[in-house]
C-alpha cells in the first residue's frame, strides 16, 4: 500500500514570495491533516479536512495561509506572502476517518521550507 505522498521535499524562497505544497493521502482515507513543525518543536495542526470539507482550521493563519482539498483526495497548502517565521517542515497526514484516538494517522515525509 502506497503511503502519504508529498511534494516538493524541499523549497527555498525569499520572504514575501508565494509557495504551494501538495499532498496525496493514502487511497480511501477520508481525513487529511496539515501540520507545521518548526525546528525544535512538535508538529502543530494547521487544518483538518473530512473528505473535501474543513473540520478544523482554528490554528491556520488565514491572512497568509490557505488550503483546499478538491474532490476529497489531493490537497494543496499555500502560503502567500511568506514570512521568515514560516520556515518549518510541513507535514501531511491522513486517516481512514476522523482520528478519534482509535484511528491511526499516517504521515508523509514532509516538505522542508526555508524562507530567506
Amino acid at each position, binding site marked *: 500500500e502506497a503511503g502519504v505522498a508529498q511534494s516538493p521535499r524541499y523549497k527555498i524562497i525569499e520572504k514575501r514570495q508565494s509557495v504551494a505544497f501538495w499532498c496525496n493521502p493514502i487511497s480511501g482515507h477520508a481525513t487529511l491533516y496539515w501540520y507545521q513543525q518548526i525546528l525544535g518543536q512538535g*508538529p502543530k495542526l494547521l487544518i483538518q479536512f473530512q473528505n473535501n470539507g474543513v473540520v478544523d482550521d482554528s490554528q491556520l493563519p488565514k491572512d497568509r495561509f490557505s488550503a483546499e482539498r478538491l474532490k476529497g483526495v489531493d490537497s494543496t497548502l499555500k502560503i502567500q506572502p511568506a514570512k521568515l517565521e514560516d520556515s518549518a517542515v510541513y507535514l501531511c497526514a491522513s486517516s481512514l476517518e476522523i482520528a478519534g*484516538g482509535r484511528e491511526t494517522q499516517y*504521515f508523509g515525509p514532509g516538505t522542508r521550507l526555508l524562507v530567506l
Partner: protein
Amino acid sequence: AQTVTQSQPEMSVQEAETVTLSCTYDTSENNYYLFWYKQPPSRQMILVIRQEAYKQQNATENRFSVNFQKAAKSFSLKISDSQLGDTAMYFCAFMSPGYGNKLVFGAGTILRVKS
C-alpha cells in the same frame, strides 16, 4: 488548554540496553488517548504505541511499553533491547474528543542508540 511536556531534549543509550523517555501532560478531560510517535532522520513519522486513558493496563508493542500514571498525568515510554534503528526523535502526543480530536504534540526527545 491541553499541553504535553517532554523534559528530556536528548537521550542516549547503548545497544541492547533499556531506556525510558518521559512525558507529562495537562488536561481536565477524563476521556483521552496518549501516543508515542517516532520520527527517524529524514523519514516519515510513525505511530509506536497508543494508550487509552480509561484502560488501567499499560500498553505494550514488542520491545516498546508504557508506564501510564493517570493521577500523576505521566506517560513514559520504555524501549527494551535498544537497536540502532531506534535512533530517532520521539514525540509524546495527546488527543481528546473534548478537544476536537486534535493531536497535541510535545517538543520531542532525540534518542541516539550507540553501538
